[in-house]
């Protein structure tokens, strides 16, 4: 029903149905994807079943994204059972590659696009961060800069769960 509502957002003329961006994916199995990351390795979401996945949509020009990323790197390093995956919504890969190298990002980053955004109910602003539980279900969706202590608590809660 919620999905149906999401598909009926647009009413007029040549407009087409798109997601609401309100986060209906929460509570549903995370839409699967398989893409090459910036290091040339294939990243398949389904292969991370059994881990808690932090899926972060970001871009190099997004100020709030840059505040979050160093913390995600720290969490990737220090929280067992967590896997961070970055999805860059930059228009081109070159600045992303440069940032990835200079910041020594320690988790996979793949290039996103409009199709990827639509897959996740519309990523119309950045950042957007989702938490996916061990079973592959989206449990939390943060639009805009996340409250990092809250996000950390959510991760720990999911890791403590089944």
């Amino acid at each position, binding site marked *: 029903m919620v999905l149906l509502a999401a598909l009926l*957002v647009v009413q007029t003329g040549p407009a087409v149905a798109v997601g609401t961006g309100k986060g209906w994916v929460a509570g549903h199995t995370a839409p699967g994807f398989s893409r090459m990351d910036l290091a040339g390795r294939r990243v398949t979401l389904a292969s991370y079943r059994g881990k808690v996945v932090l899926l972060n949509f970001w871009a*190099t*020009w997004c100020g709030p994204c840059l505040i979050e990323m160093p*913390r995600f790197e720290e969490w990737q390093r220090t929280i067992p059972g967590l896997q961070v995956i970055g999805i860059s919504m930059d*228009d081109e890969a070159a600045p992303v590659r440069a940032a990835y190298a200079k910041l020594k990002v320690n988790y996979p980053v793949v290039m996103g*696009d409009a199709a990827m955004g639509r897959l996740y109910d519309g990523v*119309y602003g950045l950042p957007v961060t989702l938490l996916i539980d061990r079973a592959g279900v989206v449990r939390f969706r943060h639009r*805009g800069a996340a409250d*990092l202590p809250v996000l950390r608590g959510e991760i720990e809660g999911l890791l403590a769960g089944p």
Partner: protein
Amino acid sequence: MGEFRKGFGSVMIAVSLLAGGGVQAFARPTTGATSEGAAVGEIPKSALIEPAEMAGLLAKGEEKPLVLQVGSRVLFAEAHIVGSEYAGAGGQDGGRASLRLRMKDVKRNQAVVIYCGCCPWGKCPNIRAAYAELVAMGFTSVRALYVAEDFGTDWVAKGYPVARGAK
């Protein structure tokens, strides 16, 4: 608060690491500056248009303004205002060059509305620079769509008409 301080420190480190490199967009302040570092002032309130007013304007049968998205091409392809065009990211040199090219032969009294919505209004790296560029080109009727949070929250989720594609 501790998290904020740590986060702020980290982003400053990130910016420092990238300073002097080839990632100007990454190191650029998030508000009020172009990628060359030139200050760009706030857009006058009188030049702002609220989403509800904009939607009403587009719904009328009268002559419509030229509507340009001046942010991310990826986000534009995902969803944009019906009838709008992608004109280049206002916060980047190449984007402003595209904007100038698009507007080169347009009459300077043409009504224009620009929008971005990539980020909350105060953190948008594009809208102010694009506005300043058009004013500098001599356009006399430029308005900026006031997107308080982001395009999803302030336009899509409110049910205003959108289209998708990368034109």
